[in-house]
């Protein structure tokens, strides 16, 4: 309601002017800039951390090594077993890039998660989708396509129902659900923060209807602080969920169901 009052439409919260080439196919806006800055942060972190190689790690090296090993232990090995070890670089890249692009939602003066633009999660989901399909063919050969949607132990007539469902859920719904999950969480978080910020602004600063409103100003402000902390958690959690689901899908592709 507050948003409806203040904004002509919801897209005002999410659409950015093109910094370079506005309204062209190569328009470079704030979202693209965030993506590239996240890329630079990721590269800097792991480049410095990876090439320093002190025997007793400290600072950036410590963060890089701990981060990499955390992804290896909690995502790669947890979802794929020993086979996951060689996938760790892919998962670590995915996790940290999503994390850094999510975390903009609580970075002061930026406060916008690039993943709340559907383009980014959609691209990531396509990467995940292509990866698990290609991995399936690499690990299992051509039989992957059918073995993946034909669960063993299903009686003949049931297959008529099960196979289309499996096909639909595995090849069509998965990329969409991956993309929407990340997008919706980050969008909701951003809208929530915006609402509390606008409410605080209205009550504490604009005060169109008098000083009485000032009494209630701390409430949305406290909410804003709480939800900023919550968004921090969501940023990590969504990066983790996206990456571990990718790992689970790849693992499923790697092994035919028995």
């Amino acid at each position, binding site marked *: 309601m507050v948003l409806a009052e203040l*904004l*002509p*439409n919801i*897209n*005002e*919260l*999410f*659409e*950015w*002017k*093109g910094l370079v080439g506005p309204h*062209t*196919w*190569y*328009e470079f*806006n*704030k*979202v*693209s800039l965030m*993506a*590239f800055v*996240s*890329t630079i942060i*990721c*590269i800097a972190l*792991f*480049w410095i*951390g*990876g*090439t320093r*190689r002190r025997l007793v790690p400290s600072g950036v090296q410590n963060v890089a*090594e701990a981060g*990499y*090993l955390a992804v290896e232990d909690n995502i790669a090995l947890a979802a794929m077993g020993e086979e996951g070890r060689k996938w*760790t*670089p*892919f998962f*670590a*890249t995915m996790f940290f*890039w999503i994390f850094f692009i999510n975390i903009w939602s609580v970075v*002061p*003066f*930026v*406060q*916008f998660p690039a993943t709340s*633009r*559907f*383009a*980014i999660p959609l*691209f990531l989901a396509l990467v995940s989708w292509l990866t698990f399909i290609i991995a399936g063919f690499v690990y299992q050969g051509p039989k992957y396509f059918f073995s993946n949607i034909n669960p063993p132990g299903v009686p003949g007539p049931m297959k008529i129902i099960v196979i289309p469902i499996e096909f639909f859920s595995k090849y069509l719904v998965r990329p969409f659900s991956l993309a*929407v999950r990340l*997008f919706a969480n980050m969008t909701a978080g951003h809208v929530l*923060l*915006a609402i509390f*910020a*606008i409410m605080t*602004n209205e009550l504490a600063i604009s005060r169109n209807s008098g000083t009485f409103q000032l009494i209630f100003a701390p409430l949305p*402000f406290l909410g*804003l602080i709480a939800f*900023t902390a919550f968004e921090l958690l969501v940023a990590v959690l969504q990066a983790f969920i996206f990456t571990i689901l990718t790992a689970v899908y790849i693992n499923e592709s790697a092994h035919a169901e028995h």
Partner: protein
Amino acid sequence: MRIRRLLLGALLVVGSVAALPTPAHAAGAKDHAKKLYACVQKAVEEHPEAKKGEGEEFENALEDCKKAASLLIPALPEILWGGLAFVIVLIVLTKFAFPALKKGLKAREDKIREDLEAASRAREEAEAESAQYRSAIGDARSEANTILEEARADAERVRRDVVARAESEAAEIRERAQEDIRLAQERAMADLRAQVADLSIGLAEKVVERNLDRDTQRALIDSYIDSVGSGSR
């Protein structure tokens, strides 16, 4: 330090609040007006009846102009740039940064393993050496005991020798002393005999005066002394 961190945190929160309303004007009102204008223009062109001021379809089209475009429609430039950014990070990290990082981790793992192995080797060596020392100490102790025993036996032998020698010396000394005593006694007896004889002769001469000649007197006295001497033994 903690207070400084807290202050910094608080500053960040306040800063965030101050900066938060900005996304609300992200695309800018001008942009929105432009879009709205274009939409209305399109609606007017598509519905010629609108110029007469009527038509439900035109009204619906105008209503649609006010609605937000779906958030689920991805922006192509964002897919391109975002995708490019991801591909770059994927290539750089998986080709260069992660292999370097893994190398470092592997090197550390190897170093730790080597150190542990070296430590366990060193401990084994130390244990072996200590066992060797212990046995050496045992040997030394038994040797010391043997030496002590021998020394004791030697001392005993020496003592016995010394005692025996001392005893024999003492016996010799005693014998010699007895011999000396005997000789002294004999000498004394001879002296005594001579004096007694002289005294007796003198005495007898005085008693008898010239009744007897001197030689007779002498023989008489000697025989007397002999009888006395044998009688006193």
